[in-house]
Structure formats: structure tokens, C-alpha cells
């Protein structure tokens, strides 16, 4: 079983929809949680990061972490065609375990006009 499991997708939604992207994990030592957006043939772009349980909001994006359930989510409000990309969750133990980040396999999102 993988340490990080991400909803596989693909996900297709109409413009304006609320999108929920989810990851679960098994390693209770994970402390840092990140979301990256990757457009086709480009490098991942850091979207949001959080170091604690709870919600963090940035514009149309909300990152949610529930450490007790080992579950993280990224919500996108008022989705736009420009949000069409692959979204990667990532998490780490911090500076232990050589500071490695463990990535999910990604969820590909298409927002249709």
C-alpha cells in the first residue's frame, strides 16, 4: 500500500463548479502538506502549503488538513478552464527522513467552458 493515495480521476466539471481533490495517507509522522498544480509538459507549481490541521484559504483555493483522519483536500471554488491541470498532493515529515516529500500520483482535472 502506498503511503499517499490520491483520488485517481480524471475529473471533468463544468465551469463555475466547486472541485474537491483528495488525498489520504498512512504515515502519522507527516507534518507538512503541499498542493502543486502541473500543466501539461510543465514543472509543478506550488499552490498551497500548510503545516497544521485546519483550513487555509487563498483566493478561490482552500486547503484542508485533518490529521486525525489522515486526510487532506483541496477545494477550488468557481472553477475556470484555466484550472485544467494535474493536481499533486505532497507531504513530508519535516527535516526527518532526509526531508523527503512523498507525492500522490496526481488527479487530472478538466474544467469545461
Amino acid at each position: 500500500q502506498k503511503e499517499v493515495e490520491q483520488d485517481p480521476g480524471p475529473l471533468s466539471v463544468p465551469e463555475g463548479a466547486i472541485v474537491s481533490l483528495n488525498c489520504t495517507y498512512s504515515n502519522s509522522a507527516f507534518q507538512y502538506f503541499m498542493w502543486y498544480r502541473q500543466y501539461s509538459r510543465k514543472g509543478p507549481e506550488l499552490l498551497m502549503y500548510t503545516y497544521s490541521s485546519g483550513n487555509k484559504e487563498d483566493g478561490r483555493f482552500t486547503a484542508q488538513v485533518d490529521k486525525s483522519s489522515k486526510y487532506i483536500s483541496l477545494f477550488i471554488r468557481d472553477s475556470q478552464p484555466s484550472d485544467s491541470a494535474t493536481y499533486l498532493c505532497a507531504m513530508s515529515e519535516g527535516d526527518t527522513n532526509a526531508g523527503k516529500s512523498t507525492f500522490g500520483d496526481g488527479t487530472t482535472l478538466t474544467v469545461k467552458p
Partner: protein
Amino acid sequence: DAMVIQNPRYQVTQFGKPVTLSCSQTLNHNVMYWYQQKSSQAPKLLFHYYDKDFNNEADTPDNFQSRRPNTSFCFLDIRSPGLGDAAMYLCATSREPGVEQYFGPGTRLTVT
């Protein structure tokens, strides 16, 4: 703007012909990473430098080497590329190990 730069963006090499990919950063971050990413897969960590300390992943083939001559630059050397090494190679940086990473645009390597 502070950023991570990778050169070249596209590289074509022949089977067995050594190739070097470069990465530079203006973020002044302590940690630099090299990842390999194949189509529809998560990035796979090859190795990273924390300052001058080199950390190799156990499953990284010996064919892959890295150099970090100074804080700003890091190189990935593939000594004898095979067809299976065709992939996107991503460089990333972070201020400390384990925190959020900033990626470059990647170098897409083709092996003929």
C-alpha cells in the same frame, strides 16, 4: 522574480551518449532536488543536496550523478543514457528539508 531555471528545456541525446542537465536558482535556498517524472506518474526523487551534503536515493541508478558547485547551481549527469531514461527531469529547491518546494520548468529528455 526569484525563480528556478533549467537548461535546456528540451534535450535529445543518443543511446549511451553522456548528457548534462543544469539547474540554477535565485531563491538562495539551501536544498536542491532532482526528480525524474514519466508520463502520468508522480515525480520520483533521484537525489538532493542540503547545502553541500549529497543525499542519494537507494534506488537511483549509478548511471545518474549530480554536482552542486555552489549554492545557485546544480547539475544532473547521465553517464550512459538508455531508452528508459527518456523522461521529464525536474529540479526543485526548498529553504530547508521537508518544507514546500519550488520547481523549475523541467527538461524533457529524449533518447534516440
